[in-house]
């Protein structure tokens, strides 16, 4: 599903590469934690998958496509197959829960009948039944992140990228968020989650990829956050 082949990314005017010779495979419907200190290259990794950045060297395949050969005007089609969730939710403050989720479908030109059908379904999936008319500022952090997850998932992407989704949320609420991510993963969606949250990584026992200074220092199935060897 995601294939990195000897990928190096160096930002202009920076000596050390943000990612260096990274080679790895993430299979369909895998759940992968991406761990490592700040500046270790987690965000760069996610941005490369979205083709927001281009690798300096190496090749990247996402959902069967060679990103180097993907023309700019086809990038949107790639992104329709990838959902994204962020630490800061990125909801539109002037739209309610339903409108925020529907927005993702409206802007890719989906018919209204389709939107009316799938948005309530996904609201149920993330556990926000009865809150479809709330505005973001009337919701708790955990609820806002559920809206963001619903928006990321409403178009049934094959991959879901989550960049520290529990970063702004207390541990108790985080469990709920992880349950939603797990539920999404069980539908066959590949989930890649960058995180600092050791407790979550340890409790989930999923594959863990650890980055340090842009290099993969550990790749463990059923791993934990800390050094396990």
């Amino acid at each position: 599903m995601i294939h990195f082949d000897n990928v190096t990314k160096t930002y202009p005017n920076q000596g050390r590469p943000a990612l260096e010779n990274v080679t790895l495979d993430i299979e369909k419907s895998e759940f992968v934690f991406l761990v490592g200190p700040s500046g270790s290259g987690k965000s760069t990794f996610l941005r490369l998958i979205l083709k927001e950045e281009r690798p300096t060297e190496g090749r990247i395949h996402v959902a069967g496509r060679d990103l180097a050969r993907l023309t700019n005007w086809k990038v949107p089609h790639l992104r329709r197959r990838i959902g994204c969730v962020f630490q800061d939710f990125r909801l539109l403050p002037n739209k309610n829960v339903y409108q925020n989720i529907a927005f993702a479908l409206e802007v890719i030109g989906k018919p209204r009948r389709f939107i009316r059908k799938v948005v309530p379904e996904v609201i149920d999936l993330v556990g926000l039944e009865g809150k479809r008319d709330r505005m973001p500022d009337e919701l708790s952090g955990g609820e806002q992140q559920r809206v963001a997850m619903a928006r990321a998932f409403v178009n049934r992407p094959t991959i879901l990228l989550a960049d520290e989704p529990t970063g702004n949320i207390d541990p108790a609420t985080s469990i709920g968020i992880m349950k939603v991510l797990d539920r999404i993963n069980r539908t066959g969606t590949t989930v890649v989650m960058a995180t600092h949250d050791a407790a979550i990584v340890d409790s989930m026992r999923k594959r863990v990829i650890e980055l340090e200074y842009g290099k993969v220092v550990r790749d463990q199935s059923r791993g934990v956050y800390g050094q396990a060897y």
Partner: protein
Amino acid sequence: MRAQFVLSEVWIGLRRNLTMTIALVVVVAISLSLLGTGLLFVKQVDNTRSYWQSRVQLSVYLCTSQAIDANCNGAVTTAEIDSIQQALKSLPEVISVTYLSQPQAVALFKQEFANSPTLVKYTSPSQIPSSFEIRLRNTQADAIPVTNSVDGLPGVAQVVDDASILNNFYKLLDGARTAVVIIAIFLLVAAILLVANTIRLSAFNRRRETSIMRLVGASNFYVQLPFLVEGMIAGFFGWLISAGLLVAVKALWLNGLQSYFPYGVTLTTTDLVEVIIIALIMGLLICGTTSFLTLRRYLRV
């Protein structure tokens, strides 16, 4: 494509930076009106020019008994008239020669200056010379050789080229026209910069929406469309105002100006409509392309 969705986004954008939108509409309106006025002026000048072009001739005024021209020695004689006519007819540049006798010239004078009775009253018929009115093959080039060959013949008081009188008049009109067009161009540049700035502000105001649109895979066109439509709507309203102003300019100013030209050179409604349509195309084109190009720079993938 979801028209309703795009329009609601456009409405949000226009409302959020209302002051800039108003400024934009006003500047577009003024610059298009000036451009249109310039174009109307150009048309007026062209019409006037072509009207005169077909009528310009060379007038050879003959001596009267009171003539003080150096060449004159009393009134022109019949023999002199005949020989001048022969000389003119032999010239290859001359198409036709019409003799205007003194009584005819007096009648024409009275008719043309019917608005100035005092002038007519105090001009004695004997002061008005008889003349030859000459149509030239080429009004511009042939005037000088023909003048040279006739000037100085006995009985010829003065050779007057109508074109040389009209040229000063044309210079005046051309100058006014150029001034209006230059001002309009400056304003159009200002309009372009304002469109760019407004769209940039709008893009900044909506950066959340835009970033989410890109994230969920909206096509570039879909991301840019609301901004494009926003610019074009502002351009359209500016044009509406300018169309009103142009109708007013034509009705109040140009029609007033035309009353000074007694020869029926008028601008038709078709001319006005044509100018207004050109203004519409210019307005939409400028606003559309500018917002599109501005966005290219600010919303790059």
